[in-house]
């Protein structure tokens, strides 16, 4: 794939991989004669994030989407590939450095109970980046800025002296968002921000995120396993399975006519709020162990259309009619049936 960083892309990821060594301790391996075990969490992924839009990454557990988020923030170092932010190479930069670049990208996490230090007051939690990046020099400035941010995310500015446990889950996510907004980032990476929240709180947070995106003109990378939320938030999305992107493209095209059997499986298994419709025909099997993925196309054991090519050759991402790309031999060979739209009209 030729790297094409158009001026419209804020972030460009090329051929990123991440391998973890999950072998047993040396002595065990020696005595039991076991080989090293390598977990390939992210396997040669490339995508571009358009400026000002939301790029969603969808997949189930073990697909590598959270690892991708951490690679972008520098929390893990990639085993291969490059990451460019606004043209600058940040591939092997540690988290938080270089400050000039990193302050323009921030992250919010999934677990509202573990993402805030339980022993710190809110004003210190939100104040930390303000001090680290030198945005505020005096305590008074920090206090003012913290109060302003709290209002912006819909919380009471007087709450700055409270501790995290005095807030509900939804309010804590607002605190995480406030902390991320301190540096006025241009890119916000959201790792399943509403998965741990109740539905009625989720809608508040999603609405808030959309409002903030408009107000500050931010780009989002939104990671989720919930297709309905992705439908609501995303402009472009990528579907991941076992460390690879299996389909990527504009939201309307992918939801309208998915070009990969796994995407179709996900669409079909989203619980629908209609009663008495056709029963979903569940597809058998579960996500295989990422340490020893199946050969060829990783999805073939669960795919109703798998043939010999699928079992031996890994498919490449190819452009489809609708404008999206998918990695599927069946689609290449024209064996993919037309898609009956089951989503609510």
């Amino acid at each position: 794939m030729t790297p094409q960083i158009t001026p419209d892309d804020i972030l460009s990821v090329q051929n990123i991989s991440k391998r973890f060594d999950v072998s047993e301790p040396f002595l065990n391996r020696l005595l039991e004669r076991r080989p090293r075990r390598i977990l390939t969490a992210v396997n040669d992924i490339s995508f571009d994030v358009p400026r000002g839009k939301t790029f969603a990454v969808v997949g189930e557990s073990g697909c590598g989407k959270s690892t991708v988020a951490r690679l972008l923030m520098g929390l893990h170092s990639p085993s291969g590939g490059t990451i460019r932010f606004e043209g600058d190479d940040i591939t092997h930069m540690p988290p938080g450095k270089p400050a000039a670049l990193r302050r323009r990208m921030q992250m919010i996490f999934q677990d509202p109970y573990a993402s805030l230090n339980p022993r710190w007051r809110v004003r210190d939690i939100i104040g930390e980046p303000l001090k680290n990046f030198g945005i505020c020099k005096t305590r008074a400035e920090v206090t003012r800025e913290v109060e302003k941010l709290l209002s912006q995310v819909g919380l009471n500015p007087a709450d700055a002296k409270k501790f995290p446990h005095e807030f509900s889950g939804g309010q804590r996510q607002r605190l995480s968002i406030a902390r991320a907004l301190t540096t006025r980032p241009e890119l916000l990476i959201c790792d399943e921000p509403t998965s741990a929240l109740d539905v009625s709180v989720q809608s508040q947070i999603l609405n808030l995120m959309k409002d903030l995106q408009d107000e500050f003109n931010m780009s989002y990378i939104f990671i989720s396993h919930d297709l309905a939320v992705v439908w609501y938030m995303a402009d472009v999305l990528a579907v991941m399975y076992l460390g690879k992107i299996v389909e990527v493209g504009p939201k309307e095209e992918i939801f309208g006519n998915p070009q990969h059997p796994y995407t179709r499986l996900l669409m079909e298994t989203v619980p629908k709020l209609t009663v008495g419709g056709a029963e979903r025909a569940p597809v058998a099997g579960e996500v295989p162990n990422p340490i020893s993925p199946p050969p060829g196309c990783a999805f073939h054991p669960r795919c109703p259309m798998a043939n010999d090519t699928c079992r031996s050759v890994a498919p490449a991402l190819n452009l489809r009619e609708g404008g999206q790309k998918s990695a599927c031999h069946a689609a290449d060979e024209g064996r993919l049936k037309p898609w009956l739209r089951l989503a609510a009209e």
Partner: protein
Amino acid sequence: MSLLELDNIVVEFPTRRGPLEAVKGLSLDLDEGEILGLVGESGAGKSITGAAITGLIEPPGLIRSGEVRLRGARIDNLPADKMRRIRGKEIGAIFQDPLTSLNPVYTVGEQLIDTMRVHLGLDQKTARQRAIDWLAEVGIPAPEARLDQYPHQFSGGMRQRVVIALALCAEPKLIIADEPTTALDVSVQAQILSLLKRLCRENGTAVVLVTHDMGVIAETADRVAVMYAGRLVEIGDVKQVIEEPLHPYTRGLMASIPQIGIRDRRLTQIECAMPGLRNPAPGCAFAPRCPRAMDHCHSIRPAPQDAGTGQVACHLYGETS
């Protein structure tokens, strides 16, 4: 006569600063073979209700008043050993986390066989064969071989299938399923729900399905009860509650669920959050957040009244409207 009746139960947790009522005056009934969904958000009291039915409320919590009746006979005040016999034989349970629902030091077979021998009085050989049949029934390939494996050797979805087999093998008439698919991947959820539904229909087992996920209810349940702040706010046929909800909370809830294909710029949101258990306000617990609250909603608590296909606890309906 209904299979299960909850008659105005109040579940209380004594604390240093006074008792906390987690469930306040809940009444429900369930017929044989019916799948009832119990829906609510965190803190609504739905899991505690499930625990009240099986008698598994963690002390010092207790059922302070009201009755739980199984086929007309009270079960909430039974001594521990009698309750133990009912649990498993008459009432089965499926919990959220398949990893901790199974004992890690016993094989799957041992757990199934043990349950059947205790509750059905079968001998070892018959129980073993039945266990193999059950594993096959829940869709575990090569059941004979897997019978002697330990829970950690199964994947998450497979484990939940084993838990379902374990719950059903003593042939109970009622199953309490507390968030059975929440910990599983979306693609596995569909399989598990469809399995649960099929087996319960085939065996005539009634299910109380506790969950926060309306989509799961829409697919699986016959009737649904909506809980808010420890009380029942609406109950009715699943089609009516989902498509034409009566209570403003249910309406708000349904409208705030994102759905594929809908193109609204904003999701409907319900302002603020569910009140905590301490110092409940007089009047309707939802009134502070209700877009249609009237003056007396804040002072008089609405009792459940017949409306739609079931009941609603709201001043907008019934005689007080």
